């Protein structure tokens, strides 16, 4: 019997009992524990006990808490008190999801005595939009969980099912990315350092790193880990598909603290010219219509003057890397004019001159 069958057996056994069941009864009735527990020697019985403890711990990760009740129960008429377990339906099943409308709550058919989460009709579009955002995770390492979460939502609220009418594409990830993501997620939640090999594309080199993962983000189609690098003693952003051999650091050195003011949002969707560690320089740029609209649409820069004579817009950007900023300006062609500072204006002019020479 494999672990899946043992777990299903254990869960069904507990759900079938509306009263607390002593551990002895579980181990002597549920298959895969039963044989060794009833006929094995002390060593085998101890091994069964450990297997049950491991199962409880792993099922907890699925959100199924099989904990002994605070009050012990009588094991027999002799009056011996023992630990007992009760898995309440509300601790196992998805609560009923209902919608409150003008005509009252639309309730799903009830099979169990479970609580109901009642949402307002106005919450449905919000949940629908969130579901679409969750669906966008489908091809990422969080994809399996995202898809099953949506199916569960749609169990009672079918209108939340997201089909082909809404799709999002991310960059394909190597097969080990799922495992790395799960490991890093646990490291973020438990604040434990990890070691890995990382391909730094800027230096074209693979290096051994020990990092303290502060958070995970999906940006521009890639998952990134924002972490403090112990080697550099500085914050760094690591792309998950460039990480190899990710493993937890063991022992007391694994622990770390995250600054109270850390917010991963500060790293999300940064433009290439914001990624350097240099001090930001304000750059004022006029961009003509319609490119100005696209820049606004991508939430880049700050609009300082709504409409100029050519129906464009003046923006201010905080530029940490002038080279990256100029590379971003070049594709906008003649629609863009740098107003200040002179150094960036000169860099753009020089880059254009070199291009003209190349295509002469």
């Amino acid at each position, binding site marked *: 019997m494999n672990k899946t069958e043992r777990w*299903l057996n254990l869960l069904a056994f507990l759900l079938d009992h509306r009263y607390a069941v002593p551990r002895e009864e579980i181990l002597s009735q549920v298959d895969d524990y039963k044989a060794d527990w009833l006929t094995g020697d002390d060593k085998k019985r101890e091994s069964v006990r450990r297997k049950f403890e491991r199962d409880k711990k792993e099922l907890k990760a699925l959100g199924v808490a099989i904990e002994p009740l605070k009050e012990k129960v009588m094991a027999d008429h002799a009056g011996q008190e023992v630990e007992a377990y009760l898995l309440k339906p509300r601790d196992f099943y998805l609560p009923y999801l209902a919608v409150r409308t003008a005509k009252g709550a639309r309730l799903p058919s009830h099979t169990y005595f479970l609580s109901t989460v009642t949402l307002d009709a106005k919450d449905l579009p*919000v949940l629908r939009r969130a579901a679409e*955002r969750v669906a966008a995770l489908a091809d990422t390492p969080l994809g399996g969980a995202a898809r099953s979460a949506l199916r*569960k939502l749609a*169990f009672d609220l079918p209108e939340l099912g997201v089909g082909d009418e809404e799709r999002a594409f991310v960059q394909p990830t190597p097969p080990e990315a799922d495992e790395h993501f*799960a490991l890093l997620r646990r490291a973020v939640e438990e604040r434990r350092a990890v070691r890995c090999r990382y391909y730094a594309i800027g230096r074209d080199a693979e290096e051994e790193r020990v990092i303290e993962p502060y*958070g995970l983000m999906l940006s521009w189609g890639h998952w990134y880990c924002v972490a403090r690098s112990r080697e550099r003693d500085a914050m760094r952003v690591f792309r998950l598909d460039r990480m190899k051999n990710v493993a937890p650091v063991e022992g007391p050195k694994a622990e770390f603290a995250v600054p109270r003011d*850390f917010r991963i949002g500060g790293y999300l969707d940064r433009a290439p010219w914001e990624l350097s560690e240099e001090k930001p320089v304000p750059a004022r740029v006029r961009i003509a219509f*319609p490119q100005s609209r696209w820049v606004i649409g991508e939430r880049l820069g700050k609009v300082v003057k709504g409409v100029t004579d050519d129906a464009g817009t003046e923006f201010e950007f905080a530029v940490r890397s002038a080279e990256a900023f100029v590379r971003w300006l070049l594709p906008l062609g003649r629609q863009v004019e740098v107003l200040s500072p002179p150094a960036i204006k000169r860099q753009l002019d020089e880059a254009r001159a070199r291009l003209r020479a190349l295509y002469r």
Partner: protein
Amino acid sequence: MPETAHGQVPRLVELIAWLSQSDSAKPVAYRAAARRLGVPEGTIRADLDALLGLSGEHRDWLASLRVALVSGGFVAHSLGAFRRPLHFTGEEGLALLLGLAGTRGGRAVAQQLAQALRAAPPAELVDAAFAISVAPSEELEERLAVARRARDERRKLEILYCASAGEPSRRVVHVHQIVEAAGRWYIVAWCEKVGAFRNFRADRVLEATLLAQDFRPQLLFQPIRKPEELLRAEEMVTARVAFSPRVARWLKERYPGGREENDGRYVVTLKVADPAWLVREVLQYGVEAEVLEPEGMREAVRRAVG
């Protein structure tokens, strides 16, 4: 990666719950179950083996579980345990909280769902440590909301659209799909003006007005299922581009399948639907990228630089 009990148990509970919802005795095809659960058919067969293993021997607590393999599929249902899905697991809860965190009004809904999200990381931790790309700008979000409404209510949409080259033009479109790729949003719609499907970049829609008239969805519509399909067009342009050794390693990752020349330059052949896109793509690398051919594309780059 081999299947683990962590993945299989919630799925089996869900499978039984799904099949127990109706009283129909009609068998389910493996393919249908696989499509619903988003796994290969082989996984469903392995799941069935696990259920058959369970129900092979009589146990009081599993007495109501019925599983049988029939021609072309299987039947399974229960009157006892597993008639409802397991509540959200930690990862499912994280995915939902991430979706809600980036949606206007999502935090309040997350609070209401708290009871169902007990296994998820605490909302404060998700806020501080996990994120997915922020929602598009408020203006773009509004355009997309109108487009989604047009799609869901099957109503025609009038847009003022500004393509990468040319003046803005008014079009009436029938929205069939919304697609996001690499941070950009596309409205996939039947365009009445050209009598064909077009992929409109949402940030180039200057105005969008929902019309009163309905439209009938195109029966032959093929939803976009791969990012490269966003570039479908009747006429594709083929161009050869050389990238300098300085940027070659990034480009090998972005455009695998190119060829390294003796001088260290990395040369790729690109097929593009939108020549203006290629000009922008190449210009972002400055002189580190050069269009080798066709001459028409070199001329387009020359014009863009001015």
